[in-house]
């Protein structure tokens, strides 16, 4: 698990101002699921990404809440309107206080 929290983010190339663009993001994370012993869920601090913040050019444009029903190494895709050159930043927060960021630069050709 040394790679935990590694974020890959992809946006298409050749974006023009005003385009609606789909970004694809992946974070390496175990997304630990609830353990059961004798049918009873075990209470402990399960390690999974529960919150994702998407910001573009310094403004928050999306806020996602995930659960353990999202696969290991969560993949996410979402859209944004490329209105200006700037940074697209995706921040993953996990239940153990981990914070993992990925960025992509939005530029117009």
């Amino acid at each position, binding site marked *: 698990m040394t790679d935990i929290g590694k974020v890959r983010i992809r946006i298409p190339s050749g974006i023009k101002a005003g385009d609606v663009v*789909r970004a694809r993001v992946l974070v390496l994370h175990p997304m630990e699921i609830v353990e059961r012993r004798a049918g009873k869920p075990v209470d402990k601090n399960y390690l999974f990404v529960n919150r994702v913040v998407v910001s573009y050019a310094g403004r928050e444009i999306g806020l996602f809440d995930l659960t353990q029903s999202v696969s290991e190494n969560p993949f996410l895709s*979402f859209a944004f309107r490329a209105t200006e050159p700037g940074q697209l930043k995706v921040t993953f927060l996990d*239940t153990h206080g981990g914070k993992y960021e990925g960025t992509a630069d939005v530029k117009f050709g």
Partner: protein
Amino acid sequence: MNDRTDPTPLSRRALLKSAGVLGAAGLLAPWLGAPPPALAQGNLGNLVPEEPVDATLKRLFGGRPIKDGSSAITLELPIIAENGALVPISVEVASPMTPQSYVKTIYVISDKNRRPMNARFNLTPASGQAFVATNLRLGESTDVRAVAELSDGTLLMAKRDVKVTIGGCGG
């Protein structure tokens, strides 16, 4: 989630739980609020509840009417998912995404998962398009619903049936 108003939450678990809830006062569920400082967000009490899907819908949307959104919502899922641990899903809702009319939230709910509320995507007009995609874990063959909450409060729902060959312990 009733401990929020309980004046005597003395056990360690209850304390940790209420610490997580503080930031979310007034919101629907503890995991909706700002990231709490305590490191106990993954404890059972802070997870989305284990409940039948009807209870989930009631908890999230109260008695509000949910309209059929099958014409506005494009819900893409495999018909047969060989591996329940990784089931790709994408949801697109037809919307102008202007500040006057946009999709505020997309919920992904799987009926047969122990904890049916799987993911919530809060969008803004800057999203440009109400589109989200991810990979789900599905415990068994189930209906998967996408519910879109529009900026005027309308709820739209689309549903698809997925056959799961090998369950993926859907949490």
